[in-house]
Every structure is written in C-alpha cells, then in structure tokens.
C-alpha cells in the first residue's frame, strides 16, 4: 500500500476520534474534569445504534443512538459527577475511572462477549493507475481505495464541525460554554446559569460520543471494548490540541489518526504493535515544544 492509502485510513480514523474528542475536551474545559468513563459512552452509543438498526433504517438508528448516549451522559453526570463538582478534578477523575469499569462490566453482562455488526452495504471506489513513487521501501503515491463507509465517517465529521462551530459562535448557550471555559466566576457575574451550561455540555458530549460509537461500529464492529479501546487516543488528541479547546481537539485528532495509520504502515512489520506508542511519542514531543497544545492559550502570569 502506498502513502495515499494510509493517509485515507488516517483521515477516517482522525474523523471519528475528532467527533469523540470534541465532547471529551469540552467536558474537560467546562466541567473541569477528565472523564475516563467517556469511552463507555461511545460503547453505549454503538450498542443502542446496533439494536435500533435491527428495526430502523441506519440514519434513524444513528439518531436514536445519539439521543440514547446523550441521555445516558446527562443521567450519569447527575448521579455521579454533579454531586461532587466542588471536590476538584482528582476525585472526579477517580470516580470516572471507577464508573468506566462498572459500565464495561455491566455492558459485558448484558451483551456478552461476542461482537455484533451493523448490517450495511458498502461500495468500494478504486483509484488505480496512480503512479508509484517508491523511496526505499515506501511508496509515496500508489493506488488506493475509499469505501462509502469511509465517506460517511468523514462526511459526518465535517457536518459535526460545521454545526459545532455555529453553536459555539452564534448561540448564547455556545458562547456561554466558551466563556465558562475562560472563567467560571466571570460567567456567573454575567448571569450565566453555570449548572445549566454544564448540563448542556454533558448532553452534547454524550450525543457526540453516541455518533462516534455508531461510526466506529459501522467501520469495525460493536463489542464491550469498542469505546474503551479508543479512550487513550481521544485523550491524546484532546491534550495535543490544547485541553479544553474543541478546535484544537479536531486538529489533534487528525494528527493522531494520521500518525497511527502511517506508523502502522511504515514501521517494520515486527514493530507495528508500537503504532499507538508512536501517537503518544508525538504527544510528548508537541507538549515539549508547546506545553499548552496546538490551540491552547499560552499560560500567562497573572
């Protein structure tokens, strides 16, 4: 496979990581916690979607999954996170790790270990006749293909970015979300109901996780570890982009997606297991150069 094919794989992977990472980073920026149970929200979305797809057309099933994951997110927040909002980031992080463990096991008990599949048709578009530009063992162009599933994933991501941007810059709730991630005290001074905004963020993050879960499920399969297997990449993408910044998370996700895809392809065969380690290597290097992440504000002295 040539470079072009692997870039395609990287863009697809970056797309569903990005959808999830936006939700993850907004929880970080506005609720002020790292939510390690967030991967399970993707799994919940993937399962709700696969069940709904049994009786409904796929796009409707995807909407059901988004609503389901959004409802699960706000319900879990009200039960476990909102009551300990004042205790600070560390207790909330630990709670989320525990909650994630419980959720994974509940899902395993309910759904069993075997994987489920979305029953979708996928067309494949081949692009042959692309000249090969071999450099050593690496082909810098090469034939490639895209599937209609890949196009759906990337298309959904672009639609999410556009809707999110409109939400964050055109609506009072969206502007208030950005304001809260700057300063919660000043947001309250302006009369913003901060708990209402936090609730909105929980719902939004859940909806995005639901969509990412369905897309992951369509691309691969649905199992108890569907979301959990992505959480480190989501975390890396969010931090890489500048924790708390949705726009940074998008950039960070594509960097992670491309790095993982390219390192899988071009590392020697016995080192491909290292591809996610390479993603973290990139994270470490970027943070050494710019500690606040790609889109992060420089930390200024008060």
């Amino acid at each position, binding site marked *: 496979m040539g470079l072009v094919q692997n870039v395609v794989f990287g863009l697809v992977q970056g797309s569903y990581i990005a959808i999830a990472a936006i939700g993850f980073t907004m929880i970080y920026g506005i609720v002020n916690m790292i939510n390690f149970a967030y991967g399970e929200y993707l799994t919940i979305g993937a399962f709700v979607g696969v069940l709904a797809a049994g009786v409904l057309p796929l796009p409707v099933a995807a909407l059901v999954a988004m609503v389901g994951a959004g409802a699960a997110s706000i319900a879990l927040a009200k039960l476990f996170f909102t009551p300990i909002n004042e205790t600070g980031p560390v207790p909330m992080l630990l709670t989320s790790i525990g909650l994630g463990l419980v959720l994974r096991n509940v899902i395993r008990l309910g759904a069993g270990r075997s994987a489920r599949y979305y029953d979708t048709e996928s067309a494949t578009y081949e692009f042959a006749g692309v000249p090969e530009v071999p450099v050593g063992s690496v082909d810098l162009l090469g034939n490639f293909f895209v599937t209609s599933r890949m196009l759906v994933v990337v298309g959904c991501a672009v639609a999410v970015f556009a809707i999110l941007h409109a939400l964050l810059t055109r609506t009072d709730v969206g*502007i208030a979300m950005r*304001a809260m991630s700057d300063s919660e005290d*000043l947001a309250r001074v302006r009369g913003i109901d901060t708990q209402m905004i936090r609730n909105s963020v929980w719902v939004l993050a859940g909806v995005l996780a639901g969509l990412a879960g369905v897309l992951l499920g369509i691309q691969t399969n649905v199992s108890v570890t569907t979301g959990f297997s992505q959480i480190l990449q989501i975390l890396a993408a969010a931090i890489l982009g500048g924790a708390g910044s949705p726009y940074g998370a998008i950039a960070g996700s594509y960097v992670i997606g491309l790095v993982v895809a390219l390192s899988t392809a071009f590392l020697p065969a016995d080192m491909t297991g290292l591809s996610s380690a390479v993603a973290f290597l990139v994270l470490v290097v970027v943070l050494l150069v710019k500690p606040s992440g790609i889109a992060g504000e420089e930390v200024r002295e*008060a």
Partner: protein
Amino acid sequence: MTLLDVAGLDAGYGDLQVLTDVDLHVDDGEYVTVVGPNGAGKSTAMKSVFGLADRFDGTITLAGDDITSLPPEDVIHEGISYVPQTDNVFPSLTVEENLRLGAYILDEVPQDRLNAVFERFPVLEDRLGETAGALSGGQQQMLGMGCALMLDPDLLLLDEPSAGLAPDLVDDMFDRIDDVNDAGTSILMVEQNAREALRRCDRGYVLAQGENRYEGPGEQLLHDEEVRQQFLGG
C-alpha cells in the same frame, strides 16, 4: 435614598474570615470609594455584595430588597453590575461576544446601550472582531466596564479600575468613571490609588484589617491628619 446598604457584614472564604462587622452604604447617584492597605478586605467587600465570597453574618440590601444570600447569577438581575479587578473579560472571546454576554440576561442585545458603550469607548467598536485577550490592559479594562454598562445598572461596582494601567491612562480612566457617575449611575469603587480615588469621589471609607476605620466625604478624608499619616503615606 439609600441604594446599597451593607450592615454588620462578616465575610470571607470557607474557614477564612476576612471582614468583621463592616458597614457600607451608597446613596442614589452617589460615588463612593473604599480605600485601605493591601489585605484590608476591600475586594472581599465587593465580592460579598456580588455573591462571590461567603457571607457569614450581617445583611446586604439593595433598594430595600435583601440580597444577602443571592448567588452572582441572581444578583445581576437586581440592577448591579460588577467589574472584577482581574479576569474581567473573557480573553478567548471576541470583543463583540464579550459585549453580547454583558447583556446575557436580556432577551436580546439592546442596540442603544451598545451604541452608548461605543460612544464612551470608541476603541471597542474599532476592535469588535478581535479576541479580548489581544487587547491592551487599558482596553480590557474599558471592555470590562463596557460589558457592565450593557445592563445600564443602578449601581456599578468597580474593583481597582486603575490597576495595571500605564500611568498616563489612569487619569483618563478616572475621567470616564466620573462620566458614568454624571450620567446617573451610582458607583462603589475599590482603589489602590487612594489619593486620586478620594479626590474624585463623593464619600469614602477607609478599611483596614477587615474593619471600618474612617468614613467621610472624600476631600475630608484626604486632608484628615490621621488618615494621611496611616494610609496615605503622610
């Protein structure tokens, strides 16, 4: 008529009590300043009125309504606006978005007040699309005040409006505050620049170690021998 009345206020943060039995009042249209050394509790007094500090005892009333236990998001509905000393704008939001949030509690942004803010601070209109974090310290202070004025408040709380400003801008800032007061808005201002603040205001308070020390017309405090010796450096 008394607009703001703070009576016997004990306040602080968690287990830390900063203010003890503080009394303050602001009459309709009055310009009142609170001065005193660092750590006197001046900012805490402001935060207490606006619900950002813990109030342990005493009462705070605004035009007769008890607002003692209201959180900030409710106090803003009572006709008071507050410009904190630091973090008084959202740095990652544009100037326009900041002003829009100044009127967050209203159904829509009142165009006449926006125009009034631009008239007062023309630089804000010129830099509408830029992020607030890109403004200079003085411009951020103007934006912070502009946001507070979007609600046309009866009472404006200003916490150290001259802090961090270049010396040649300080006078300009005080002139603008005079203008706001002349337009009918009552002002309660905390200032580090005690001489200038007392010269400008109608009435002043000297706070030290969280307690009332002196109170009186600004000019009188400015010329009071004890106040000069203890708080104005002779």
